[in-house]
């Protein structure tokens, strides 16, 4: 860890990503009805099947009720008081190259530290950046298309690769899956699409950066990744939002499909605005992420570092359909001040000899509430399956809470499911020991927390692991002493 940099970050701002950019937006009228959905579909020049798909989801959503089982509390959301589509005006036709991207948008991304220029080519990261609802630029396209890899915005995919989208969209997270997934299906405005052809190993990390910029705007991005037989891809998403007093809704859906012998590694560093110290403002992060190991010997691995959002409601899961397929979930969820997180995973074992591994590290500080909720379900036919779950909670201070809700459901006798859980506190003894070695309280907490989360952070691609470490330190600012 670059400790000096962490110190610098600690002495810096509170939420350093909390700037707004002055970009003219093209927005749909406030509220949600079939006209708004038609407006979105038309704006995006979608083929007919998409509009039908959206309307079907919307009509289904109208009959659904918002889920209340999560251990989070928030005032009722007025779904008619949200803008469902906001596009930076200058992006109307979509940029042809980086030079065509609005300089103001580029400055926004530069402030975020997302490289859109030559530098990131050196860093080896292809970035698809989504500002509010529209994908702004996708780098690296040419290099990837030479390998047959498609990496583009979801809007573009719907237009250019509609047969693939039609084939896969909603196959893992159906439009009727749950309240927020249905809402997303109706109104999603952009997101990323990624297709790795048979036998291709994607040579670079693919990355999407999401940012909510416009006021009172919901963000509903949709990501779909398809890895054909024997292919491999590592994908990272990052996110941030400006500081605003009101709460903003983010309801994304991510679907992953891994065919025979394919592997998808999906990493998230989530840093949406968490609200201020009194719990005012912040993002409601209600996200559905699911991967399907369709083929035998396929593998899907989720890694998430969740430091932002006022409320997080998120259970990235794996459906282990193929025999010998593997699902993994590595998570660090941090709540400070008034943040609430109810997060975990679902591992559904359908195929024989399927394996899943869950490592969840919750960190609660301030008045934060952190819940792990996980389901491991082994179907009767999934003989010889294995699961190992490790759920740890770390408490900082005495006003926060940690909760664990593991659900285990084993349908045959040849499978083995193991669950381990620990709860620990950063003790006075450990703090004093660090301080006696000249390490300040803040740095000591950062050191201890990063040590605690190491097993998960190690799963992240190198440069993002460093970023995640710094985020943890910044997010814990003021939590002790």
């Amino acid at each position: 860890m670059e400790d000096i940099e962490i110190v610098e970050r600690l002495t810096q701002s509170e939420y350093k990503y909390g700037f707004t950019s002055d970009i003219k937006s093209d927005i749909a009228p406030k509220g949600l009805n079939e006209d708004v959905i038609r407006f979105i579909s038309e704006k995006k020049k979608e083929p007919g099947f998409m509009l039908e798909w959206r309307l079907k989801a919307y009509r289904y959503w109208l009959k659904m009720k918002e889920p209340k089982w999560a251990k989070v509390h928030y005032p009722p959301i007025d779904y008619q008081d949200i803008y469902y589509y906001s596009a930076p005006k200058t992006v109307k036709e979509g940029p042809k190259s980086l030079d065509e991207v609005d300089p103001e948008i580029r400055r926004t991304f530069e402030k975020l530290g997302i490289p859109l220029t030559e530098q990131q080519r050196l860093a080896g990261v292809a970035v698809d950046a989504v500002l509010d609802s529209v994908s702004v630029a996708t780098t690296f396209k040419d290099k990837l298309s030479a390998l047959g890899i498609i990496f583009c915005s979801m809007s573009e995919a719907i237009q250019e690769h509609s047969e693939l989208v039609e084939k896969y969209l909603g196959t893992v997270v159906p439009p009727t899956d749950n309240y927020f997934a249905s809402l997303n299906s109706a109104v999603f405005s952009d997101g990323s699409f990624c297709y790795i052809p048979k036998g291709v190993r994607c040579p670079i990390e693919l990355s999407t950066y999401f940012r909510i910029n416009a006021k009172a705007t919901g963000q509903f991005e949709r990501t779909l990744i398809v890895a054909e037989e024997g292919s491999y891809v590592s994908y990272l998403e990052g996110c941030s939002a400006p500081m605003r007093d009101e709460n903003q809704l983010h309801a994304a859906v991510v679907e992953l499909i891994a065919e025979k012998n394919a592997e998808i590694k999906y990493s998230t560093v989530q840093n949406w605005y968490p609200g201020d110290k009194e719990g005012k403002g912040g993002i409601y992060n209600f996200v559905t992420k699911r991967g399907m190991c369709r083929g035998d010997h396929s593998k899907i691995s989720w890694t998430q570092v969740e430091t932002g959002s006022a409320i997080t409601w998120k259970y990235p899961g794996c459906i282990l359909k193929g025999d010998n397929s593997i699902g993994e979930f590595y998570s660090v969820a941090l709540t400070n001040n008034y943040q609430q997180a109810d997060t975990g995973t679902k591992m559904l074992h359908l195929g024989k000899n399927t394996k899943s591994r869950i490592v969840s590290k919750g960190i609660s500080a301030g008045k934060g509430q952190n819940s792990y909720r996980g389901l491991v379900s082994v179907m009767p036919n999934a003989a010889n399956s294995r699961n190992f779950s490790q759920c740890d909670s770390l408490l900082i201070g005495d006003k926060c809470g940690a909760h664990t809700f593991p659900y285990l459901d084993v349908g045959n006798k040849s499978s083995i499911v193991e669950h381990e859980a620990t709860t620990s506190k950063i003790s006075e003894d450990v703090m004093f020991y660090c301080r006696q070695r000249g390490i300040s309280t803040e740095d000591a907490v950062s050191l201890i927390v990063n040590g605690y989360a190491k097993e998960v952070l190690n799963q992240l691609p190198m440069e993002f692991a460093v970023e995640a470490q710094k985020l943890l330190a910044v997010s814990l600012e003021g939590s002790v002493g």
Partner: protein
Amino acid sequence: MSLLKIENLQANVNGNQILKGIDLEVNTGEIHAIMGPNGSGKSTLANVLAGRDEYVVTGGKVTYLGKNLFDMSPEVRAREGIFLAFQYPVEIPGVSNANFMKTALNELRKYRNEEPLDAMDFLSLMKEKAALVEIDKTFLNRAVNEGFSGGEKKRNEIFQMAMLQPKLGILDETDSGLDIDALKIVANGVNKLSNANNAFVVITHYQRLLDYIIPDFVHVLYNGKIVKSGTKKLAFELEEKGYEWVKKEAVA
């Protein structure tokens, strides 16, 4: 040069008065041994000097390098060169010894307006100091004290001390629970670190550590006060007559 000057120091723990007026002056180049029976206030003295919260100073004053020690937070005391080798070193899971030491050393360097040590220099410094206390290189990648034996933990304390090169090293019963080989290694470490610009306060219950670390002064702490001070001979006398002898004299 006067490094540490303790005058009439009194301190409470959980409302009980443990230190009842300690006077002690430590100059650079000196090694002081503080001996005494259990419960006499030895560890309290060490913790008060390091600045632990639960130890409340109720009177007296302590001057360190000409400044009021009590104006400094524990981390500032550490950066000013006070090192406490803990009687019960804690475990820090997931934080490697190397990372821990790198953080501590760079905090220290920052305090002195020095650049952080680069990775290569840091690594060679660690290897050099690890050799000093005869610990294996692999230990540097293990989490701080996690799964260490009692002896390893104490050697780790001396290793850290060697890394940070304090002006004032306080050893709080570092010898307790050590076998003779570990004891020799610990003592040897201290002897190699000792020079004309630093000083050590060695707190011990037993005389045997002083066979290997030769103190310039020996003080006997009893019932929160230093009741006897002398040279190395005093330690032998104690060994021979036992603490009962001091207790009787103190009462008399």
